[in-house]
């Protein structure tokens, strides 16, 4: 039974999010990017629309629309702006995800309803200055002190973790060594107002300039025992699972960005006349657009299949890594050619493809670089 038909709900969702992105985000995207400014107002509006908590059950304030729906929503936001897609993708997969899947009943009740409303945001703190691709290099430690834990260390590049809406950040720490002598990891839910926590917004980014990125410092930061996420020692596993899901949303950003850049390039090529005719009438340009459309179609099918596998509770990890890799890389091709088709104007900020060209680059780096995705895939295929 092979069907490519979306449900009515998924189609309505796509229309709604597309209209929303076009009406609310597109008019201000360029300005927010230029000013490197995170928008609390737009984040709230995205929350009101219901873009947080799409895979969360209704009892905690989610909509249970599922993974395909979630990916369609991210795709439609990314079609207009990468930064706002990042707020949604990280807010859901990295912020809400670990609390929903691994949190205690109390933790879920405490955080999820506000997170699903978009009233608050949660960060996911894994990366450290010396531990990027290799999470094994983590130096942030948590040491027991009576019922409490004392955390020391730092995190870098943490999305949604230093803005007025941040309520909590999931922080991965080293809590000792396991029986095999390896580092044992555990995650903690750290409220934004915890004494000993310093959260600084990072500036000077090439891309995702209106998404909030934080540097976190923990200085003898005390958290109670019930801040532990799941059980002690489960941190590594929690991180891997979170990243598996996160790959789907990063892939959706690549797909949506590619779609947006392609549409801009197509429209421009139909209007721009050189040598007495629209430039799309030259085979050199038409073939670029044909390549773009073909790659986007292939990418969409791969990603939706990965989401479908996840919804069917089948193993989806290999296809998720492939989708993340492929969607980010076709976006690079599409964004680059979209600028090419715009000629000199594509290099100017007034044209959206300039921003798409920059925003694309993160997708080959964040949540596991393309090299790391290839490592993951090569393991799955038995290399």
């Amino acid at each position: 039974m092979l069907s490519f038909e979306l449900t009515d709900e998924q189609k309505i969702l796509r229309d709604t999010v597309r209209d929303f992105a076009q009406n609310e985000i597109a008019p201000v995207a360029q300005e927010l990017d230029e000013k490197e400014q995170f928008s609390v107002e737009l984040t709230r509006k995205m929350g009101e629309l219901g873009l947080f908590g799409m895979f969360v059950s209704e009892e905690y304030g989610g909509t249970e629309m599922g993974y395909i729906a979630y990916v369609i929503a991210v795709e439609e936001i990314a079609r207009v702006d990468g930064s706002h897609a990042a707020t949604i993708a990280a807010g859901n997969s990295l912020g809400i995800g670990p609390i929903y899947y691994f949190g205690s009943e109390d933790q879920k009740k405490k955080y999820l309803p506000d997170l699903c409303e978009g009233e608050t945001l949660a960060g996911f703190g894994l990366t450290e200055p010396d531990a990027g691709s290799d999470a094994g290099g983590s130096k942030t430690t948590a040491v027991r002190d009576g019922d409490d834990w004392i955390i020391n260390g730092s995190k870098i590049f943490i999305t949604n973790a230093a803005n007025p809406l941040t309520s909590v950040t999931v922080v991965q720490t080293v809590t000792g060594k396991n029986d095999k002598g390896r580092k044992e990891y555990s995650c903690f839910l750290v409220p934004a107002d915890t004494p000993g926590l310093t959260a600084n917004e990072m500036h000077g980014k090439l891309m995702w300039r209106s998404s909030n990125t934080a540097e976190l410092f923990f200085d003898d930061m005390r958290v109670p025992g019930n801040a532990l996420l799941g059980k002690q020692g489960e941190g590594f596993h929690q991180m891997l699972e979170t990243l598996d899901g996160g790959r789907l949303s990063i892939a959706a950003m690549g797909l949506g960005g590619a779609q947006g850049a392609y549409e801009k390039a197509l429209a421009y090529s139909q209007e721009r006349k050189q040598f007495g005719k629209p430039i799309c009438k030259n085979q050199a340009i038409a073939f670029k657009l044909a390549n773009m459309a073909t790659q986007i179609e292939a990418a969409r099918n791969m990603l939706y299949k990965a989401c479908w596998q996840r919804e069917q509770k089948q193993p989806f990890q290999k296809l998720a890594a492939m989708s993340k890799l492929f969607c980010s890389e076709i976006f690079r091709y599409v964004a680059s050619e979209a600028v090419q088709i715009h000629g000199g104007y594509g290099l100017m900020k007034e044209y959206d493809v300039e921003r798409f060209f920059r925003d694309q680059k993160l997708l080959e780096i964040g949540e596991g670089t393309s090299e790391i995705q290839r490592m993951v895939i090569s393991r799955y295929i038995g290399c």
Partner: protein
Amino acid sequence: MKILVTMKRVADPDNANKVKISGDGTQVTSEGLEWKPNPFDEYGVEAALRILEDGVGSGKLRGEVVVVTIGPEEVTQQIRQCLAMGADRGILVSGDDDKLDAMIVARTMAKLVEKEQPDLVIMGKQAVDGDSNQASQMLAEILGWPQATFAGHVEVPEDLSSATVTREVDGGAAKVKVAFPAVLSVDLRIVTPTGVNNNVAAGKDYQEGPRYASLRGIMKAKKKPIDKLTLDDLGVDRTLQVRTVSFTQPAARSAGVILETVQELVQKLQDEAKVL
């Protein structure tokens, strides 16, 4: 109070340039087109929701909003979209666009009014594909109900017994009061933040334009009922009174010119455009 709102699906007006005419010129082909609710009908749904909104922001309505459409089976998607905005239920009367005219639509609506006994029917002032602007007037005539067309502002008293309607007319506005039951047709301005005043949710700050179908709304809409009927079920006389002779594409717009001076512009506006 019960409000019936009509909704027709139309080819995405933002992509209207993709509409093609069949070889013999007698039909518009819908191949590859995306469908949307007619914008003026979406405004009608928004107006109905605003009229019935309560004062405490509970999200509950002080009555029922029923969305009615005549069209093929696939229009359930556009009905669900209206239900996701907040309407309560839908009625789909199956029918093909090329076998309908404004009179058949009005007759069908009249039968549904008989069946549903609403206090108010709200229609878009026109569908943006056919642009006929006739169905609401015909319906009011058949029913013998008062009508207020081109509503840009509606005020209803707390007891929902009537409406004071500001109508958009050439060069200004006309204010009329209609007692319910009545037929309204709505214009663009009805969805400005102050387009509807129901004297209960006073001072409520509406966003510009019709509300989005929120994700929660979409999930709720899944469970809302859509009744399916045929024109025969309703006993509608299906004799067409309008016969389409042919369609032609609008002439391609010729390129603009850039003028050097203001004097030249004034000259051209006077001599060529003859608007001065």
